[in-house]
């Protein structure tokens, strides 16, 4: 199994989720994160004190899928999250050794 971790623009979350459902992805986990990258933030000024907002709000999606689904999932995410503007984000892939569904104790592929 693979853990696909995608950092995307927040307003693309619903698009991405909808793109994954047809592929049979039944679950995923998202977190609010802040990203630092080529995309530059704004400057905030509070009574003369300037703070450059170098960290921009992003959404991190973590989804574990069977090996054979990984390519399609990556492609689907990349397509759905694409705007072509700087800051669209990244997709990283890692190997998952084991998975378990807590409710049933099922493991690996059937746990997803």
């Amino acid at each position, binding site marked *: 199994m693979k853990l696909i971790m995608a950092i995307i623009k927040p*307003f693309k979350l*619903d698009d991405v989720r909808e793109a994954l459902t047809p592929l049979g992805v039944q679950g995923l986990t998202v977190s609010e994160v802040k990203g630092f990258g080529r995309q530059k933030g*704004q*400057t*905030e*000024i*509070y009574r003369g004190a300037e703070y450059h*907002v170098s960290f921009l709000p992003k959404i991190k999606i973590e989804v574990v899928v069977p090996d054979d689904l990984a390519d399609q999932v990556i492609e689907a995410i990349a397509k759905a999250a694409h705007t072509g*503007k700087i800051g669209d984000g990244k997709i990283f892939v890692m190997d998952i050794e084991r998975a378990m569904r807590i409710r049933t104790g099922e493991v690996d592929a059937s746990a997803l």
Partner: protein
Amino acid sequence: MKRLPWGWGLGAALPALLLAMPAFAEDGPPKLDSGDTAWMLTSTALVLLMTIPGLALFYAGMVRKKNILATMMQSFAICAIVTIVWCVIGYSLAFTPGNAYIGDFSRVMLSGIADHIVKGNDTQAFVLESGIKDVAGVTMTIPETVYMMFQMTFAIITPALIAGAFADRMKFSALCIFITLWSICVYAPIAHWVWAPSGWAFQLGVLDFAGGTVVHINAGIAGLICALVLGKRVGYGTDNMAPFNLSYAVIGASLLWVGWFGFNAGSAVAANGRAGMAMAVTQIATAAATLGWLFAEWITKGKPSVLGAISGAVAGLVAITPASGYVLPGSAIIIGVAAGVICFWAATSLKHMLGYDDSLDAFGVHGIGGIVGALLTGVFAFAPLSATDASPDGTAGGLDQLKLQAIGVCVTIVYTGVMTLILLMITKLVVGLRVNEEEEREGLDIVLHGEQIF
């Protein structure tokens, strides 16, 4: 057009004290009453509380996180802008005799407002002159400064209400220009029609105790036009636009409720039985509307929402506004329930049927609620409450009065609709109306003001 002043539209200009202190008219200048002045000073503070922080919170509690500060800023900046506009020209246009359609320039920069001050104090109470021979002015028991201030708070909240319709997407520069123009060209004349003794609606006998037409229908229709001209928010109908922190909206609605006592009971311009009855029916209608919306929603959607309850409360406050000095508690319950249910339908069904994006339902709550209230005032007006010395019979609800009310409503709708459209076009030419799509996505807080909350 020239009728006796018994059929005044009055509202905030209620000559309630003609009765209470008949001595005024007889000899010497009208006297100040410290109790009435105390209540009007308090009412002024209460109505200001409605806009900041009341409305600021009510509106900010319904938007997404990225627009919370910008939404609060709208109310706050409008408060500052309209204060200056009112002081420079607005008050003069609204409350000096002029003609039936607009006041004159005699109070520009509030000139002359200190004329009666001798040794630090007003030596006489304010008389809102009719400027028309044979038509008596409205004699008050408070200084003119206090009347001017009380009216200013109404002039402030009205455009601030409109902001609910264009929230989340209007440029701040556009807001500054549009609101300045609107306050002068729309608010001041309509206030003049209805509340100045020389105004045509006042003379016609349209009843609007505390601002159903002047404030709510006016703001609601202007909001609708804004929503139509600016267009829908980016992502409307697809993105999740759930309120970020509805608890702010609850605080805001609560402060609106409390502050509205100043709005309605203050419109008696005295601390007397009329103020007491206005406060009572305000409370009762608001509670009835809260429960009206709440149960309508519970029945049709399965759950009574908090946003529903507070929206109902505001709808009730709006609807009882024109009626508050004229109706009895029983009628207040009916007006409240009607407002709650009808505004529920307007904000949850009508808006979707018609397909405009009035972000925070300025039209659905204030426009519709104001119309409901203005018309029902014509139905339920209880004569002894609106009676005065000059008009000992008062005005009773009925078909005749309903017609007058309908005229008031229609003219207001047409005038504010057309003028708002024109002023928006002017503003668009000068600075443009809307931020661009990317800015809208990023949020107005950071884009317009360079700030954000956590």
